[in-house]
Structure formats: structure tokens, C-alpha cells
């Protein structure tokens, strides 16, 4: 094969290593993703890129040759795919199961390739790999043309904001380098690409196996006038450079305070440039100041640019901490607490609308609730379908709300301030990725109205400390009975109370809700909000709900000031509750007449650190009520 110019570095290494090093210090970095299944020759292509850029050592090559003969799929030839497979289990199965990152370099650039597999976990893995990529190589088998998966890959790359798409029509050697085959595929793809909003792509005929149009233009495709793949990779514009032209944004990661004389704000510049003297605004507070210094270990910078990790000092003593965003004073991002976003679900456990998740965006972590999706997107057909929830690898559009304002930009404008992850509050798993479209107007226009009579004033007028006594336990555990006694005892002491009962609330406020997991979550969210309003009014609220999920009980706890949420676990073993069966519900559930019954075919998650635990097999309802009242008044 011909040796293109970018591969003539070897001579320089031997002759003048200092000149070589100097040249290589000035390389830029491109991150890209390759999309395609094993059959498209993706691993072979990556193996070929590593091989051709001399990233393979002799011992690896010897192992590769031996492996190729033993388990390879290319007969006696080298099977490049074997270079890039990974974990032992997949080696045996011949599939890759995750995102792997590969590295190679030419004279002009260093490359990081995200390699993602092609089976059912595809969406999750591809979205992960695409999130950091500037360019995508979409592989198509010349013999098969544009397939469903080609469309899926292209859609996901476009969704994640990749602006440079290379359509690599592979295995041209197997169709005799026929231009008509290539043109047919190019045209078919063009129609589809336009329909999903891809305005520009670069088609290229290649053979990863034979090396055509990889590093040099191939003599086998004289009709192809474009550049070889490596040339495209070496010259495509970088997102990092484009980010510099955007308005200045620095999400603050860490406040640097070595001593009383220095207070710096450390972070990676997400967009724009910054110089001493620049006017900045701190979000979400909106306070303004001027940049004093752009500090680094290597000395102060005259100018910091997008992509650099720096520490800023400001001319004024202004409040600023982790999660705040320092931005160009004249062009700051917005803050809002309700958004529309595309959400990619990545967990085995489906999304529960209304449940609280952690949302991390930039350096901000807040609590967020996702509403029922407006629609789900079929990644194979691009059709929108109705959905009540999102399952693993599903993509949907939904509104979400956060417990405090989030400084953000549309994902289109900024990956750093528009891309977020959702984290399950109990398993701590990353369950979803999201991309913000825009904030909802109602969030901008609905403001908190400050009232002159504060909640403290209302509580003082009632001469009591508001609280929520949150009873939880199985159906028939004795929640309502004990809660009723507690309220009576408090009333006798002239306390102002209100009892919210599960069954009663379902007759009115929550009459539209059923007993699916999603409805149970929404039921508790509403009750939590009502309880919160009542504590604002000064009341002692007693609630009696099964409230089976820890996450929702925790959500209500978070809504209230520290110490006002008192969890009362009415601990009655299932067998005992079933034996009592006051309402005859267990019998119905056992006979299948009643679905989604807690303890039978719907889970109950007992509290781990309840303030009060009542063992009803040892305490009478009256004794239990006394204990709870004592706890409340002792606070």
C-alpha cells in the first residue's frame, strides 16, 4: 500500500527526535465515534486505523496473528477485529458489550475513538459514546445498503448533536468497487438524512479489510473524488474551536481558598473566552463583578479559552459557590425550574413519572421530577408513539421540574449546559441522559410571592411547632387507627391538627389516580404538597398512607424544613396484617380480584431509619399513640 505523507514520521524519529517532539506537541485532538454492527466491519476498520497509524507493537501483532489463525474469521489473514475486542467473556462470544475507547495518532492529530457494540444495549452505549464525539463514522455494508440500524445510528448521532457525519460505505472490495452501488447508497442515505435534519454528510467508499481509501486514495476507486478517511479525520473542524466563539460560561466546580487573601473559582471554561477586566454575571443570583485574574499553575493567563481548566478571581467579594455559573455579563444563560427535554432511559427499572431523581447538569445537582412523556420516539422508524413511561433504551420527550432554578442553555447551544443525567436516589445508578430543549414559559412567569405573614408567624400564633407525622406500613397494619388516636390526644391538648387519610384523599383530590407504581408515586407527591401547605399554615399534620416506596417518603422529607418530617413505621408483619384483614382486601388480592396490592403483588419498602417504629404485635394502639405524642412534644 502507498505510504501517504502523514506516515513519513518514522524517519524523523530516527534522525531528529527533538524536531519530531516539537511537531507532535502541537497536534490537536479529535474525538469520534464509529457506528455499525460487527457485520459492517467496524472493528476491522478501527483495527485497520490502529495498524496503519503504527499503534500496534510487534508482540501484539504476534498475538494477533496467532489469534487470527485460532479464532479469526478471515482465514489465514490478519483479523483486525481481534485487536479491539475486550473483556474475556465477549472474546469468547465474539461480541462487544460496552463502550470502549481506542487511541491513535497521526502527525496532525491525536484521535480518541469511541467504539460501541451493535446489539440490544445499543442505544445506551451509543448515546454515551456520541456525547463526547465531534464526528461520527456511520458504517454501511456495500452489499446491504442503508438498513434500519443505519437510520438508528444516524438519528442517535444527530440527537446527540454531532455535526460531522461520515457515511463510510464499507466492503467495496466485495462489490468490485462498483460506483453504481456506492451512488445508490449515497442517494438513499441522503433522502433519509434530510428527513431527520442532517443537512450535511460526507460519503466515502472504503474497504477496512483491504485498506482502500483509509489512509490514501485508492486506485480501485478512480471515480471517487473526495479525500481518504484519514484526511477527513485530520482536517474536520473541532467543536472545541467553535465553542470559543460562544458567549463566556464557566460552571464553578470548586472554590479555591488557600488563605484569607485568595478566593478563586475553579472550573473548565464551557464556552467563550475570558480576560482580566471582563464584566461577568454570576448565575442564578444575577450579581455582577469584574474578572481580576485568570489563574493557573503556570502563571496568570492573558486570556482563558473554552476547553481550559482555570481558576478565576473576581474584583468584588460576591457570593459564588459550586453549581453557580460565571458568565458574560451582557449575554448570560437563563435560569428556570421547568423544562422540556429529550430523555434517553438507561436503566433496567423503568422511569416513574413523578418520582424524584437527582439531576446533574454541569456542576449543579438538584432534585427533579419527570412528568409522563409527551411521546416516545421509535428509533427505527422515527415515529412518535404515546407512552406512559420509558423503559431501558427508550427515548422520549417529557417535561420536568426541578426543586430550584437550574442555570442552563438549550442542548443545541451548549452540550455542557444543556446535557444532564438523572440519578436514582436509592441505587445511585445513572438511569437516564437528557437534553434540554427549552424552559417552559410558566416557569419563567410563575414567581414565588413573598407574603408578609411568615410560616413562623402562623406557627407562633398557634403556639406550636408544625410537623408532619408520616405513618407508613402495610394495608391493615393499624395506621389509621393509631393516627386517629394520636390526633384525638393532641386535640385534647389544644393542638391544631389535621389528619390526611389515604382512603379519604382518594375520594377527592386523588380520585383520578389508580394503583400502578406511577400512580402511587403521584398520589404521595400530591399528599406531600398538601401536607407542606398545612405545615406552612402552622398545623401538625398526621398522614396515614401505605406509601410503599422509600423514594417518595424521602421526597416528602426533602420538601419540608429539617426536622419537621417524622416518619412513623407501623410495623406489622404481612402474615399478621393478612390475618386481621379488616377490610377484606387481602382475601380479594389473594384470589386475584384486586391487582397491585401492596405486600402481595406490589412491593413494600420498609423504612431504614424511621424516627419512630411501632411494633403492633407488642404495643396496643393506645400505647403506640402515647409514644408518638411523647416524641412529638419532646422535640
Amino acid at each position, binding site marked *: 500500500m502507498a505510504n501517504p505523507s502523514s506516515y513519513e514520521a518514522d524517519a524523523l524519529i530516527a534522525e531528529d*527526535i527533538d524536531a519530531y*517532539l516539537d511537531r507532535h506537541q502541537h497536534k490537536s485532538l479529535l474525538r469520534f465515534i464509529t457506528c455499525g454492527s460487527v457485520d459492517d466491519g467496524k472493528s476491522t476498520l478501527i483495527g485497520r486505523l490502529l495498524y496503519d497509524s503504527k499503534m500496534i507493537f510487534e508482540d501484539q501483532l504476534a498475538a494477533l496473528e496467532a489469534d487470527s489463525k485460532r479464532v479469526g474469521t478471515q482465514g489465514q489473514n490478519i483479523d483486525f477485529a481481534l485487536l479491539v475486542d475486550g473483556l474475556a467473556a465477549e472474546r469468547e462470544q465474539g461480541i462487544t458489550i460496552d463502550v470502549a*475507547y481506542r487511541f491513535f495518532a497521526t502527525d496532525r492529530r491525536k484521535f480518541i475513538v469511541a467504539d460501541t457494540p451493535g446489539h440490544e444495549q445499543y442505544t445506551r452505549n451509543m448515546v454515551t459514546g456520541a456525547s463526547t464525539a465531534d464526528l461520527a463514522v456511520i458504517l454501511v455494508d456495500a452489499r446491504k445498503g442503508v438498513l434500519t440500524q443505519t437510520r438508528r445510528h444516524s438519528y442517535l448521532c444527530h440527537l446527540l448533536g454531532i455535526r460531522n457525519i461520515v457515511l463510510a460505505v464499507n466492503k467495496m472490495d466485495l462489490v468490485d468497487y462498483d460506483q453504481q452501488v456506492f451512488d445508490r447508497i449515497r442517494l438513499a442515505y441522503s433522502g433519509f438524512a434530510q428527513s431527520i435534519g442532517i443537512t450535511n454528510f460526507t460519503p466515502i467508499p472504503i474497504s477496512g479489510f483491504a485498506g482502500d481509501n483509509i489512509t490514501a486514495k485508492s486506485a480501485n476507486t478512480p471515480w471517487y473524488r473526495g479525500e481518504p478517511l484519514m484526511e477527513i479525520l485530520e482536517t474536520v473542524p473541532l467543536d472545541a474551536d467553535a465553542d470559543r466563539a460562544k458567549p463566556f460560561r464557566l460552571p464553578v466546580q470548586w472554590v479555591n481558598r488557600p488563605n484569607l487573601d485568595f478566593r478563586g473559582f475553579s472550573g473548565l471554561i464551557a464556552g467563550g473566552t475570558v480576560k482580566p477586566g471582563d464584566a461577568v454575571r454570576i448565575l442564578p443570583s444575577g450579581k455582577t463583578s469584574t474578572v481580576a485574574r485568570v489563574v493557573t*499553575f503556570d502563571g496568570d493567563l492573558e486570556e482563558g479559552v473554552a476547553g481550559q*481548566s482555570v481558576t478565576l478571581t473576581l474584583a468584588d467579594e460576591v457570593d459564588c459557590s459550586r453549581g453557580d455559573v460565571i458568565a458574560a455579563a451582557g449575554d448570560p444563560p437563563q435560569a428556570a425550574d421547568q423544562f422540556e427535554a429529550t430523555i434517553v432511559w438507561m436503566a433496567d427499572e423503568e422511569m416513574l413519572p413523578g418520582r424524584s431523581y437527582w439531576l446533574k447538569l454541569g456542576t449543579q445537582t438538584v432534585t427533579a421530577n419527570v412528568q409522563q412523556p409527551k411521546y416516545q420516539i421509535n428509533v427505527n422508524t422515527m415515529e412518535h408513539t404515546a407512552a406512559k413511561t420509558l423503559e431501558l433504551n427508550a427515548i422520549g420527550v417529557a417535561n420536568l421540574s426541578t426543586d430550584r432554578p437550574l442555570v442552563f442553555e438549550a442542548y443545541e447551544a451548549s452540550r455542557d449546559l444543556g446535557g444532564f443525567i438523572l440519578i436514582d436516589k436509592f441505587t*445511585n445508578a*445513572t438511569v437516564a441522559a437528557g437534553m434540554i430543549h427549552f424552559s417552559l414559559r410558566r416557569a419563567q412567569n410563575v414567581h414565588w410571592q413573598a407574603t408578609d405573614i411568615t410560616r413562623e408567624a402562623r406557627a407562633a400564633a398557634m403556639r406550636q411547632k408544625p410537623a408532619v407525622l408520616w405513618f407508613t406500613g402495610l394495608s391493615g397494619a393499624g395506621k389509621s387507627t393509631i393516627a386517629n388516636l394520636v390526633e384525638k390526644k393532641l386535640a385534647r391538648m389544644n393542638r391544631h391538627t389535621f389528619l390526611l387519610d389515604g382512603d379519604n384523599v382518594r375520594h377527592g383530590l386523588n380520585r383520578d389516580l389508580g394503583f400502578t407504581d406511577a400512580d402511587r408515586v403521584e398520589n404521595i407527591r400530591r399528599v406531600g404538597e398538601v401536607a407542606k401547605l398545612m405545615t406552612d399554615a402552622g398545623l401538625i399534620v398526621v398522614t396515614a398512607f401505605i406509601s410503599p416506596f422509600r423514594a417518595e417518603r424521602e421526597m416528602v422529607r426533602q420538601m419540608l424544613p429539617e426536622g419537621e418530617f417524622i416518619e412513623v413505621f407501623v410495623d406489622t408483619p404481612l402474615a399478621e396484617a393478612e390475618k386481621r384483614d379488616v377490610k377484606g382486601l387481602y382475601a380479594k388480592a389473594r384470589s386475584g380480584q384486586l391487582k397491585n396490592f401492596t405486600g402481595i403483588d406490589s412491593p413494600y419498602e420498609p423504612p431504614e431509619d424511621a424516627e419512630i417504629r411501632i411494633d403492633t404485635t407488642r404495643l396496643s394502639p393506645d400505647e403506640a399513640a402515647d409514644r408518638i405524642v411523647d416524641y412529638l412534644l419532646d422535640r
Partner: protein
Amino acid sequence: MTASLTHLQRLEAESIHILREVVAETEKPVMLYSIGKDSAVMLHLARKAFYPSPPPFPLLHVDTTWKFRAMYELRDRAAREAGMELLVYQNPEAKERGINPFDHGSLHTDMWKTEGLKQALDLYGFDAAFGGARRDEEKSRAKERIFSFRSANHRWDPKNQRPELWRLYNAKKAKGESIRVFPISNWTELDIWQYIHLENIEIVPLYFAAPRPTVERDGLILMVDDDRFRLKPGEVPVERSVRFRTLGCYPLTGAVESEATTLPQVIQEMLLTTTSERQGRAIDHDQAASMEKKKQEGYF
């Protein structure tokens, strides 16, 4: 507009970002310091990330007592210069049983390194540990996350790792669980060398060629670093001009014959050489995918 950031500037910015995220989001981080070139780069990046403060965590060396003498010399000085506390941990059981690389084979690594690391992390209650592993080192590492979660008993579950998107790292964890964080995941061996050259970072002199007393055994050139080295009958140390591409326990680390006495010469040799970095380490040759097994057991 000025030129694009170079690949090293971007890698540096990414590593600094990771270091800061961990300090902001975990309670008690520590940096595992093995005194090799990757550790040297990681320590340098930590100094940059928190400047003008010193890095707000200690260095931890999980010692096997069998490192090269030159490594111990640099270790203490490097910590002092960075203004960081240095913790040295040696597994007391391994010490008592006299576990050594001559008699105990892979048990040596298991007890001193794998067990020693777990014991040290438990002893001090660290919930995040920075390590200098890179994805280009070995095939199974290509898929390793930057934030790698370990259960309360330090096991790594390859099926249960969190997706990492954009620059977002999820550092949430339950009590007792910990994270291993690899800030230089995306650096290659050449990047490391170039950065050391560019930033003038001090590394152990063993990386440069010098005449050293050596013996050849099972295809490896081993250095006789002290009198604990057990010579076989008839074996006589021979002075060879050698250097090391990777540093570990001296009786387990193979040298290469070399005349490269400067950093550019070392890089030149590396680029012209035809064998990969890990070949000098005995640990990889045990069995196919051995690194992966070690990782599941808690070794880095």
C-alpha cells in the same frame, strides 16, 4: 483567533476537571501513588488542579517493600515538594509471613498490593482513590470507566458500571462503597512521555539508561537492586546498560538494554521499539485476560 488547544492541553484540562469533581463530590479522597511515570504525571496534574492550594488530599503508597531503592528516594521528596501528606501502608500479614516475589509467585502481588490496598482504604476510610491507570495499557482497560465503582468489599462488577456522558460524572454512592478514579484514562504512553518532557517533571532515574548489575532469567533482564536478590547457582550479576519502561517490584520488573540517557532519547527508543509496554511486567503473562481477573479482585 489563536490556535486550537493541543491534544496535551485538552487532556490536561480534562484530567484537572476530573480531579476537581472528585474533591467537590466525595468526602475523603486519596491519591494512590506508585512512584512510576504515570503517578508522576497524575501528581503534577493534581498540583495544577488546586493551585495555589496544595492538593487537598494525601498520597498513599501501598508498599510491597520490594520496590527499587531509587523509587523510595523519589517518593518522599515528591510528596514534600507538593506539600502533601504521604501515607505508606504495608500489609502486616504479608510482612509477618515474609511474602516475597521469589517464593510466593502471584501470592506476592495478591497479598502486598491487592490485599494491602483494600486494607489501607478500609483503615483510613477513603471513599475515593485516584489511580494512574490508562485505557491504552491493555485491552480490558479500554472499557474501564473514569469513575469505577467498587462494592463495600472492593469488588468491581463489569456489568454494573455507570454510563459516563459528556463531562458528567456521577459520584453518588452508598456508605461503605468507594470509587476508583482514573484521571489520566485518555492519555497514551506517548502522551505521558511528551508531557513529562514538556513540563519537566521529575521521574525515577531508572527510566534512563545506566550501567546496572543485572541477570537474565526466563527472557527478562532483572536488576540486582539489593542483597535480597537470590542468585541461582552459577548466576553472576553482569553490568549492562539498561533502563526500565515500567516500574514495579524490582525482582518482577524486566529491563531493556538501552543507551538512552535523556528523555528525548527514551521517547525515540519507545517510538522505534516494537514491543508493548506491559511486556516488561511478569504479572500479565500468567494467563489470557489476567488483568481483568485481577481487577475484579480489587487490584487496579
